[in-house]
């Protein structure tokens, strides 16, 4: 098979080999059942922990392997070839961990990150609310100072790994009249007084991932659980999402690749009008477009990931691109895969219907693709204004 040479390092090749092995041996055999039963993939999370994958992006001083965005992208791309509900559960822990990594004090990092790196504890990120989705500034969850404590009230909605994670990074309003600058980030632990879980959502796809409400009812947490400074919450959320977005793009690449693999395999076997359907130009052209767009998406994700790892500070536009394009590709490719498999593709006996159901979330979560276009468009406006 001719492959683009992305000049991966030896360690990066190892990450690819290992995550591919886990996908083939541990994820693919159970993915249909996990999807059917909406079952949280704890066994696979244990395998990923044993394989050191939760340590990937965490610095060595906190028990991690010190990898960057590129390493993370390579891992989730391979896992996504198996099941993106499983991959999202894995990746959501990094999303929840980034605020601590980026803005936590040394004490906070020492306290939380080693357990996260060892895969002993999952982290969840809590930003979205019923009335604050794309407009994150509309958060209604509040945090009020009370002596040595912060007291949180409100409800977070659609939180990935809610109820399963042990550590939660939460954005709440501390000064409502300051708008977005009135938001602050906190660390909340499962078991904290006044912290409970609401209903578990039933979803179109991504069904093995847990999506749940977080309920704060006079939830009292010690003062030292504040992340960063008061009023920095919105910036923390945006920086976290900027860093995580290429990973979502990589999930799109992996999912689309899996759908292409199934499509080509099927088209070579399926005989109609006396010949395999891959001999028909109508099918060949669809497959050619799928393969080409996937490779373009992969190249974009890797290039942006490497730019971030090289120390570029201003990368919101780039990471939005690295989320937008591959996830649109994933939706298109998985839809075409169902089309190529025809009636069989629509049946649950084949894996592509799940891929298509799952793909839709990639265009919605961690910022809808419309929001990504806003980010890119606004950045263009700013960049060209500077050029005068």
């Amino acid at each position, binding site marked *: 098979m001719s492959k683009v040479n992305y000049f991966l390092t030896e360690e990066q090749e*190892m*990450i690819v080999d*290992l995550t591919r092995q886990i996908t083939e041996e541990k994820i693919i055999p159970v993915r249909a059942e996990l999807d059917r039963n909406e079952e949280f993939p704890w066994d696979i999370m244990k395998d990923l922990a*044993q*394989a*050191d*994958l939760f*340590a*990937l992006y965490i610095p060595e001083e906190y028990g991690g*392997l010190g990898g960057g965005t590129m390493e993370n992208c390579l891992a989730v791309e391979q896992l996504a070839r198996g099941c993106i509900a499983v991959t999202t559960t894995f990746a959501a822990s990094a999303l929840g961990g980034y605020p601590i990594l980026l803005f936590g004090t040394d004490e906070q990092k020492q306290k939380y990150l080693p357990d996260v790196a060892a895969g002993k504890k999952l982290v969840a990120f809590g930003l979205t609310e019923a009335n604050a989705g794309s407009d994150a500034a509309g958060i209604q969850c509040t945090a009020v100072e009370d002596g040595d404590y912060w007291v949180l009230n409100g409800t977070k909605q659609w939180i990935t790994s809610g109820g399963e994670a042990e550590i939660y990074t939460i954005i709440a309003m501390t000064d409502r009249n300051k708008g977005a600058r009135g938001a602050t980030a906190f660390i909340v632990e499962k078991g904290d007084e006044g912290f409970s879980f609401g209903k578990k959502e039933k979803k179109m796809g991504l069904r093995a991932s847990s999506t749940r409400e977080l309920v704060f009812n006079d939830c009292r947490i010690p003062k030292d659980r504040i992340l960063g400074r008061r009023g920095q919450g919105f910036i923390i959320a945006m920086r976290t999402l900027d860093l995580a977005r290429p990973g979502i793009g990589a999930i799109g690449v992996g999912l689309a690749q899996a759908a292409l693999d199934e499509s080509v395999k099927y088209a070579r076997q399926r005989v109609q009008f006396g010949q395999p359907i891959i001999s028909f130009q109508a099918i060949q052209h669809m497959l050619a477009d799928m393969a080409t767009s996937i490779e373009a998406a992969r190249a974009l994700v890797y290039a942006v990931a490497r730019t971030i790892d090289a120390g570029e500070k201003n990368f919101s536009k780039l990471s939005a691109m690295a989320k937008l394009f591959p996830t649109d590709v994933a939706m298109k490719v998985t839809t075409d895969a169902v089309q190529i498999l025809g009636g069989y593709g629509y049946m649950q006996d084949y894996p592509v219907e799940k891929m298509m159901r799952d793909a839709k979330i990639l265009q919605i979560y961690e910022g809808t693709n419309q929001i990504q276009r806003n980010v890119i468009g606004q950045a263009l406006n700013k960049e060209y204004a500077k050029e005068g």
Partner: protein
Amino acid sequence: MKIAVCIKQVPDASTVRFDKEKGTLVREGVESVINPFDYNAIEAGLALKDQVGGEVSVLTMGPPQAQDAIREAISLGVDNGIVVSDRAFAGADTLATTYTLAKAINKLGAFDLVICGKQAVDGDTAQVGPGLAVRLGIPCVTCVDDLEVLEDGRKLRLKRMCEQGYDIVEVELPALITVLASLNIPRVPSLKGKMRAKKADIPMLSAEDIGAETSKVGLAGSPTQVATTTVPTFDAKREMLEGEPEEQVDALIGKLKEAGIL
């Protein structure tokens, strides 16, 4: 607990092809993998180490490329490994193999437990584990399906599968066990393990290094000679009996008598 796990590299069953004329395996272009049961043996060793502490060593007899199997075992978490390799070992049957492995294990030192897979999927003899136990002069429990540590690791309670059921056996260490695939689910490698495996120094010990007599190893030490290998033919016949149940029974008994079975 000091644990030695014996493993074997075998042809990857998914890439094996047959030479139909010669009735032999085509070895060229076939990848080598760790024998499937040996993954369960490695996992058993690692699980015991996780539980009671200690060290897991892995050894194999084979050509120099058997180092790949040792590296893979290290990536799974074993502490160290060696390859026993010498041109003189070629053509060994199970008698010569157990002699060689016993010499190597004695060279490495004392072990509390030796673990082997139930059998290798290429030869399917299931003789190396028990034979090795005899050579080492330690008790042997084969076909282990469940395992429990007793008395701080001085004893094991084992579930040994038999044709008609199972035995529960307690054995004092040192001992040798052979394990079934149903004992455990082998773990995946870890990234740290893969990095360690890549850099690991894997010693290769020759016949001389382990103090083996050349007359007892390889072809020279192997009384077994494979005369021919043939593909079995299935000439079973099927016949449907008709009529009332009584008539069918009579007809069946008649046919069984005819065939000399009754």
